[in-house]
């Protein structure tokens, strides 16, 4: 059997694909905002003075890093409603799952960047007699956040790609719409290649940007 490729069919589905992409971007953006906030709090909790808080935060992070996102998503979509007794829409489940995932991976980013600020900066704070509040708010935190930016951007790119998983609970994202078109037209090569290229076109410039920002940031903070 020979295969003839017909990429000319694609423009017909441009609107549908654009709609899917829009959903993907919206979901990703929402989960980035919620997830980075959550990650920051967990990152702080992991260096808390209370052993209990450290243990809870640590377990949370290890659990979400150690299990597939797809299972987390299914669990929230299928199992959580049974426990809570409330029906969750696929959008809500997807948002919860991806936010928790983003929170777990970005908490690690914040934790290591907090560590990287180092004892010498702390010595300088003490030698200058800075009050505790100023040590944290004016010296340690701003540097930790700057150091975290490149890795956080990488986390965002990961999240953008992982978000394709939400098609599995029926959310009409780029992946879901691509799959539907592919099934209905029986043109998987053309359609799935096009979908992959759309993901790539967005992710690739971002990964290049991460490399550039990382270099500049490290040079600045090396002082």
């Amino acid at each position: 059997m020979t295969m003839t490729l017909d990429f000319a069919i694609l423009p017909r589905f441009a609107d549908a694909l654009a709609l899917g992409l829009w959903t993907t971007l919206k979901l990703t953006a929402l989960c980035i905002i919620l997830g980075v906030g959550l990650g920051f709090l967990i990152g702080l909790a992991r260096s808390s003075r209370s052993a209990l808080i450290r243990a809870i935060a640590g377990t949370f992070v290890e659990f979400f890093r150690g299990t597939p996102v797809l299972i987390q998503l299914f669990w929230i979509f299928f199992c959580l409603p049974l426990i809570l007794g409330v029906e969750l829409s696929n959008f809500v489940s997807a948002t919860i799952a991806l936010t928790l995932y983003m929170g777990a991976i970005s908490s690690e980013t914040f934790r290591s960047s907090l560590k990287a600020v180092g004892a010498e900066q702390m010595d300088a704070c003490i030698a200058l007699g800075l009050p505790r509040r100023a040590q944290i708010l004016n010296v340690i935190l701003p540097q930790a956040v700057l150091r975290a930016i490149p890795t956080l951007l990488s986390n965002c790119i990961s999240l953008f790609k992982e978000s394709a998983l939400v098609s599995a609970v029926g959310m009409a994202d780029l992946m879901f719409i691509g799959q539907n078109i592919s099934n209905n037209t029986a043109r998987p090569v053309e359609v799935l290649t096009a979908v992959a290229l759309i993901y790539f076109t967005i992710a690739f410039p971002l990964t290049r940007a991460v490399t550039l920002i990382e270099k500049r940031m490290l040079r600045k903070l090396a002082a």
Partner: protein
Amino acid sequence: MTAPIASAPLLCIRDLHKSYGEHIKVLQGLNIEMKPGERVVVIGPSGGGKSTLLRVVMGLEQIQAGSVSLGGKPYIDARGRKTVIDTELRRKIGMVFQHYTLFPHLSIMENLVLAPRKVNAESRASATERGRKILDRFGLAAKADAYPSQLSGGQKQRVAIARALMLDPQLMLFDEVTSALDPELVAEVEAVILQLAEQGMPMMMVTHDMWFARNVASRVIFCAGGVVVEDGPPEQVLGHPREERTREFINRVFHIKT
């Protein structure tokens, strides 16, 4: 001012003991009394406790025994297992470190005004005004808006000194401040310290640069094994040491071979 105050010690270090774990004893009963206006250079072999001494005086280290007083008032005191530190008194001491430790995310001027604003609630305008004067004095006026990463090591270290001076310290501590610098940048930092010395700033300094030590010191202390081995004017300790251990050390660092 009455006469007795002038002769009262500025800094009084009594019976300092500091160890890491059970076996590594860094300070073993160290005593130093420093008069106002003195410039003390501490020399000695690595691991002899010089830097630790300065860090203890700054209140950066826990100690097992001993106390440190400033102007007759104790501000560091080992009580049982805890080192009690009076942070108000500690603020009267400034310290400059080997690795500059500027705040890399802040401009030079922001580095200078942060502590006066947060510690003394000084207004930004007033702190900036004072900052400009100090930068000007140190030949760094053009760098006020630059970031630390845009400066040479020598410039960074001069900024670090300026930053400490912003709080009008009664005593300055310099911990190997030229050790991380390229040789051609050492002189500019030493010139700034000499300038302070001429203005009568009391200082205690650890350095490996014996020529600089001779130039700046009013008194040299040779520290080894966590205690003061020899203490006297620079001509004596660096030129004609009385103690055998000091003589060995001086001969080694000056590479005197015949």
